[in-house]
């Protein structure tokens, strides 16, 4: 009995000692920077380890993985930052949520010299997304954009010349005549906001016309020709069932399944679809003929004469205002976003670079033959509304534009405007 007690005591002592040792960091003496990352295929952890090596003992970067969902990542980071969590040295931030954390001063200001270095050769869309109130508040890392993916056979049968920009109406007609499904994201989530924003901005409109205004003074640009045109396109696709019965619950992955299926035709989606399809062919779950049939182009236009406002996503790096090592964190951020690291991340994990140099990398061009189109798309990409109240605007849009079959140009823009405005004024629940 006594022996057992002693054994339990020893185990407990070891556990406590182990715990304390873990709290103490690596013990090498160099500060440990914690980088909160979004889940990926291991690319950010690899870059962190390379930068730790390059720092030559000046600092160590440890990664801490955030939830998979972008909204959940935002929630966790915002809660920690509001609690002045000093463990956040670096964070991978989704661009639409940047104003929300920049406005209350949760991000450390970027020194002038760092700003100069990290903005060189960066695509326009990524720069716009990293900025708030004319100031660069985050370091552009990787920049995502949606392309129009198509099945060459369907496009040819529909008589579409895919070397030229195509419009949503042309796609709608092609899907009607070919009796196939158009793959779009109609699920009530952030994906729907991405679609709405792309449709509105492609007509030259803006969902939020005065992004820097206070909540009560925010003005929406939905009750415009651009807003009504966006509603017309979405409503037509929804009402006529052109995207198939799965549209109201269709996210990016479900869209890909539809596109890869028997009735696949056209799809708007992020570049991950290419590596995912290639992996499917390598695994033997998809045919090589499918991969050979896939083409890509710039996002569809709303108006034939106006270039599309292509969707912009990706990840920027923020340095926590309450970090105890902000100087080192900026040093680390500069290391993380070098064109070499961005090229590696693009080729290995399929996340496009924000730096134009990375697009010349042979590895990238081999893995992603559509890299030049991605770069072109990023140059004309339009960020989602940049306001500290983005989340309310986005959820408000989802509440009023879902399901797509209920969207009508005559009523949806007005209903959406009234609802979101009331929510921002604190008069309605969301």
């Amino acid at each position, binding site marked *: 009995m006594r022996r057992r007690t002693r054994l339990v005591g020893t185990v407990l002592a070891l556990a406590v000692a182990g715990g304390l040792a873990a709290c103490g960091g690596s013990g090498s003496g160099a500060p440990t920077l914690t980088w909160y990352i979004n889940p990926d295929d291991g690319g950010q952890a690899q870059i962190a380890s390379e930068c730790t090596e390059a720092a030559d003992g000046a600092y160590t970067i440890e990664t801490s993985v955030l939830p998979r969902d972008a909204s959940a990542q935002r929630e966790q980071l915002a809660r920690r930052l509001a609690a002045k969590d000093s463990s956040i040295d670096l964070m991978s931030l989704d661009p639409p949520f940047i104003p929300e954390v920049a406005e209350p001063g949760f991000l450390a200001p970027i020194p002038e010299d760092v700003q100069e270095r990290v903005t060189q050769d960066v695509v326009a869309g990524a720069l716009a997304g990293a900025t708030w109130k004319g100031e660069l508040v985050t370091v552009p890392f990787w920049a995502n954009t949606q392309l129009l993916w198509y099945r060459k056979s369907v496009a040819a049968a529909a008589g579409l010349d895919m070397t030229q920009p195509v419009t949503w109406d042309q796609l709608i007609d092609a899907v009607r005549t070919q009796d196939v499904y158009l793959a779009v994201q109609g*699920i009530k989530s952030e994906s729907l906001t991405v679609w709405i924003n792309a449709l509105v901005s492609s007509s030259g409109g803006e969902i939020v016309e005065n992004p820097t205004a206070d909540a009560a003074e925010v003005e929406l640009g939905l009750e415009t020709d651009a807003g009504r045109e966006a509603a017309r396109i979405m409503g037509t696709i929804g009402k006529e069932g052109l995207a198939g019965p799965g549209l*109201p*619950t269709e996210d990016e992955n479900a869209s890909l*399944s539809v596109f890869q299926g028997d009735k696949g035709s056209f799809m708007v989606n992020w570049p991950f679809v290419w590596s995912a399809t290639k992996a499917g062919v390598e695994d033997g779950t998809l045919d090589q003929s499918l991969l050979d049939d896939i083409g890509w182009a710039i996002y569809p236009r709303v108006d034939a004469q106006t270039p599309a406002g292509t969707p912009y996503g990706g990840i920027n790096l923020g340095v926590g205002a309450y970090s105890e090592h902000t100087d080192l964190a900026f040093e680390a951020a500069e290391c993380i976003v070098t064109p070499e690291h961005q090229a590696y991340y693009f080729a290995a994990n399929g996340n496009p670079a924000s730096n134009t140099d990375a697009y010349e990398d042979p590895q990238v061009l081999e893995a992603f033959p559509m890299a030049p189109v991605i770069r072109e798309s990023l140059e004309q990409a339009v960020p989602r509304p940049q306001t500290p109240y983005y989340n309310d605007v986005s959820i408000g849009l989802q509440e009023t534009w879902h399901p797509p079959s209920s969207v009508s140009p005559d009523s949806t823009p007005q209903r959406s405007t009234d609802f979101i405005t009331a929510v921002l004024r604190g008069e309605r629940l*969301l």
Partner: protein
Amino acid sequence: MTTEATRERGRRRGAGDDADKQARAAHSERTRAEARLGWYLAGPAFVIMLAVTLYPILQAFYDSLFRYRLTTPDDRAFIGVENYWVILRDGFFWQSVAVTVLITLVTVVVELILGFALALVMHRAIRRLRGLLRTAILVPYGIITVVSAFAWFYAFDINSGYINHWFGWVPGISTDLNWFAQTGTSLFVIIASEIWKTTPFISLLLLSGLAQVPSDLEEAAEVDGATAWQRFRRVIIPNMKAAIMVAVLFRALDAFRIFDNVFIMTNGANGTTVLSLLAYKTSIGRLEIGLGSAISVLLFLCVILICWVAIKLFKVDLASARGE
């Protein structure tokens, strides 16, 4: 003689009174000591309970009186009951209440009927099969709610689901049916998964109630010529009222606080937002601490109301059941 006898009786009575008093004093001393011991034993747990339940409730009530968003800390201001005013005037809130009440009512009623049937089966089962039967019936309850929610979601999902293929012969079901695209079908799946998951719980509670019904009462009723239905209504049900109340109360509270199933399956789309989800979305999603706390306080008041209604409705005094 009479006087002597009276005196003697008086002496005896007096002695008896003293003994009674002494016994009562000893008894009350013992009771007090037991009560003290009870407090010593339960006190720490009571303090911890207060810390983990009462403190957050009071904090939520306090926060609900403020306009406070985590990402605009400088804008924090005391606004009294304005948050409650905004919530109670909002149709979205009442829609959430309606959906929550609907889910609660349907699940509790169906579970009560199914649970009773299962409890009767378990009660009447052959002794050798009883253990196996109870284990088999309890399996769904042993599964974590989030896991069961995902299982049901993937089963009914239009892309990955098999339900549409298996039940394509049922009128109204086809491969094109998107269960999570409309209110009615979404609620159907949410409610069905809830019933599947928690019927075992209610049946187990009812089984314990059935075991408490005296068999001689049932036999007497049978001898008196009562039919099976009459025995069930007049003998079994009244004798297990306390067990039914506990089952209904626990399940009603649980159903009213439903979150996981809705969160996983629809995330509130198609008008399926329930109160817990609304509180979560407001506090955690929108970081609106004041407004979200006010919704949580209202949810808490609803839970208190359900307890009160259940206890009044069943007229069960649980204290008297313990012989106090």
